[in-house]
């Protein structure tokens, strides 16, 4: 992107709140049920059915407010946002317009060691809409199927200030927000399942200019990657338009994942008038200071505190600490390994390299993974006591990850015990050295590489089970 322009980004994030039942009725929120099996007269918009606030939703909203350093006003209220759409049964969404439950907060992102504070304008409670299934565009499809299971699931919409200046910062913000929401226990934050959704507001302006440029809103950002790509694409589009003297429209655009570009959805002129007004079915909420303090006392450890703990207690680099605190499950895995195997850096290395590699490959969450932390600790001990080499451990790890077996089991099954017996190894070395007089000569003439040849041959002869340290020692003696 052109150097003389600055990108300005703000994000609107919808997090599905982790509650058993919906925000205004007692229907289940379970994911993946038969279409329209979790629906009642209220969430299907039948006449006479009324909303009653799920207290758990309010608690989770307050918890989020605390985690995001927000003010939690004494009063907040619900408003109706009116518009017609087949996935919105009442033809209004119950949301919070001018008096949200949380406002004026912030979170901090780490940009290569530099901490940047991103302000949060507000977080408010609202209900989700249903899901439509149809071919292509809704205006041309022959029919459309409506699934109302998701309708009325409690959401928290978290709106940042336009404080981000690059796709990378936006991604760091969303990752940090996700960690915080996970640690606070308020949302599952599964982008694939739609329990964390993100819209980006983007504008560009000449560097040094105070006034913001024309803003577009981008929807349908279903992964961290599409967030980054879409912002990069959109910023480039804005810069090009400005440089070509074209007028930018304030509009809503959608990210086309397939074509990797943004497309116009609707312009500001076409924007709906939502006719917000206080929902007369729901009395305003008064949140006492005592209640907030009570929830504050019960707050779980949050990512920043956890990172600090890892650095302080184990002397881990900030980089490691940040990765280990991506999710509470990941941190818990670390904490459980470290209880048994106390070398934090070794544990961190194994988690960041091998464990992450296999989790990514298999697309698994750490909580679903067969490999349990206690078993990783046991494997690390086997390396330390010389039973297996570091190299063998990688094979063992792969098997443990796939089958959930313990390291000793895998080692035994595969006959992978390391050979450290000097007598046995000496005999093998003897025969290899004797069988390659020319290479011995090369080595003695100063060709260091020849040493590696012998190590390789010993390993080959022992199917990799020879203890490398012992082999090194014996070879050196032999070749002296």
């Amino acid at each position, binding site marked *: 992107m052109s150097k003389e322009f600055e990108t300005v980004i703000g994000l609107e994030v919808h997090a599905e709140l982790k509650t058993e039942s919906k925000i205004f009725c007692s229907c289940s929120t379970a994911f993946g049920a038969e279409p329209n099996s979790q629906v009642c007269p209220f969430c299907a918009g039948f*006449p006479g059915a009324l909303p009653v606030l799920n207290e758990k939703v309010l608690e989770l909203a307050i918890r989020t407010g605390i985690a995001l350093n927000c003010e939690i006003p004494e009063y907040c209220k619900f408003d109706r946002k*009116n518009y017609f759409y087949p996935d919105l049964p009442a033809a209004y969404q119950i949301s919070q317009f001018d008096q949200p439950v949380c406002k004026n907060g912030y979170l901090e992102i780490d940009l290569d060691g530099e901490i940047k504070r991103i302000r949060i304008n507000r977080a408010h409670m609202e209900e989700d809409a249903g899901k439509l299934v149809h071919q292509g565009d809704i205006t041309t499809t022959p029919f459309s199927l409506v699934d109302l299971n998701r309708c009325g699931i409690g959401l928290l919409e978290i709106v940042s200030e336009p404080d981000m200046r690059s796709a990378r910062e936006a991604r760091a913000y969303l990752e940090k927000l996700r960690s915080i929401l996970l640690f606070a226990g308020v949302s599952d934050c599964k982008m694939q399942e739609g329990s964390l959704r993100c819209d980006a507001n983007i504008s560009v302006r000449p560097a040094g200019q105070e006034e913001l440029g024309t803003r577009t809103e981008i929807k349908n950002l279903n992964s961290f990657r599409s967030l980054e790509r879409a912002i990069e694409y959109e910023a480039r589009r804005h810069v090009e338009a400005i440089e070509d003297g074209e007028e930018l429209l304030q509009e809503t655009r959608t990210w086309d994942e397939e074509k990797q570009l943004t497309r116009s959805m609707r312009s500001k002129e076409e924007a709906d008038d939502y006719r917000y007004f206080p929902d*007369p079915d729901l009395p305003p909420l008064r949140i006492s200071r005592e209640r907030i303090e009570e929830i504050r006392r019960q707050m779980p450890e949050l990512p920043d505190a956890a990172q600090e703990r890892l650095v302080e207690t184990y002397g881990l680099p900030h980089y490691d600490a940040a990765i280990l605190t991506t999710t509470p499950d990941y941190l818990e895995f670390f904490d459980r390994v470290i209880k048994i195997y106390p070398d934090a850096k070794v544990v961190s290395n194994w988690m960041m390299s091998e464990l992450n590699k296999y989790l990514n490959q298999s697309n698994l969450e750490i909580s679903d993974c067969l490999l349990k932390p206690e078993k990783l600790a046991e494997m690390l001990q086997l390396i330390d006591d010389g039973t297996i080499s570091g190299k063998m451990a990688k094979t063992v790890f792969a098997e443990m990850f796939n089958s959930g077996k313990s390291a000793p089991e895998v080692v035994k099954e595969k006959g992978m015990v390391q050979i450290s017996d000097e007598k046995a190894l000496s005999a093998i070395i003897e025969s290899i050295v004797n069988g390659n007089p020319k290479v011995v000569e090369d080595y003695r003439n100063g060709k260091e590489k020849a040493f590696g040849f012998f190590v390789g041959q010993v390993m080959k002869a022992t199917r990799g089970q020879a203890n490398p340290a012992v082999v090194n020692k014996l070879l050196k003696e032999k070749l002296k």
Partner: protein
Amino acid sequence: MDLYKLTVHELQDKLLAGEITSEDIVKSLFSRIAVVEEKAQAFITLCEETAWESARRIDQQGEYGGIKGIPYGLKDLFCTRGIKTTCASRMLENFVPSYESTASKLLNEKGGILLGKLNLDEFAMGSSTEQSAFFPSRNPWDWERVPGGSSGGCAAAVAAGEIPFALASDTGGSIRQPASYCGIVGLKPTYGRVSRWGVAAFASSLDQVGILSRNVRDCALILKIIAGKDPLDASSADIEVPDYSAFLDGEVKGMRIAYPREYFRQGVTESIRTAVMKALRKFEELGAIVEEVSLPHSEYALPAYFIVAPAEASTNLARFDGVRYGWRDGEAANVADMFSLSRAQGFGPEVKRRIMLGTYALSSGYYDAYYLKAMKVRRLIAADFAEVFRDFDLIVSPTTPTTAFQLGEQIDDTLTLYMNDALTVPVNMAGLPGISIPCALDDGLPVGMQLIGRAFDEATLLKAAYAFEQNTDYHRLTPVPGGGINE
């Protein structure tokens, strides 16, 4: 014996005494309906089969008391499980709910027997039932006159002897005005006193479930059954429900009654003014202290109401979009057309008028000037009442400016029609309880007196109304079908 003429308490006594069965009552009422319904046009749906079945079951058990074994009617915007609930609209002509309103559920649990669903102005928007999508109901005192509205079907049925009592809703006078026109008792309790769950919403901050009955005593009995906190309605109040019947001692001695001068002007006819003043003198005779007061902001209640109520209605009725239930235009080419065509065909003119008014009032740029301002006016109206209630126990006024008007007389004169609610609307705007009881006949037509009480003090309201009733005979007057007076 003409059981259809009896009140709930009279029926209860006979059941307890073993003189009659619930089946006898059902039989008598259906016979009565067979005679007068052709004229009254009160019912949209009759529940004959289930009514007989319930009566037989209760008779087999043989235990009576309260409303057990006694039939009732429901304004057809109370959702009834398995029974068509139309809101007198094409939109819901074939709508059968899978759930039951809390109020009717409470009656059913006490052994009340639903006899049928009663006519109303479409979605409760109107003052005559002439806005019903199906047919207008008629006033039993004069078949050529309206029974009032929107709960006109309920009032006509109770007055004509088709049903001993009915539940209805009151948003701006929809219970009290028809009660007044039909010479019966109509109670709108305090906002939040009775659950609104399962009652199709018109204006959520004003709607309240109430009762139409032949006398105050029945009203007190039924209120006790339906009042109270409902976990399904966040706006229902968690305030203790007293035994209202225990307050009915016929005494008003020392009670402080105010009459607001503004409520005797606003187009109130001379004879109604005189009738209510006479009723006030009756209270004085009975030992009450009666004084004139002022409720200066009440004159703004009607214009403010016609912002607030349509605004809320415009969003409450937005759910009728043809997607999940109700009227759907089958020819629409796309989803946007389906929305607009279904709504254009499913709603009648008055409903459309109010949806448009309300949509406008909530529109961006107009919200502050209309809705917000109306809500401020509302606070002023409530403050006026609160001021008076510091010194008085009760406020008395006429219920309506006129007696029942002719069918068709006001149908094209929307403003005059809206004026019918001028004296009842302020009570809804302030969320207070109000009751209309018959206090005179004017040229053969009933005149209603409105009593307004403190929030959640229905007990005082009923006590005073009962005392008046005990010392007068107006509640005993019943119409002879086709005109004239019985007894």
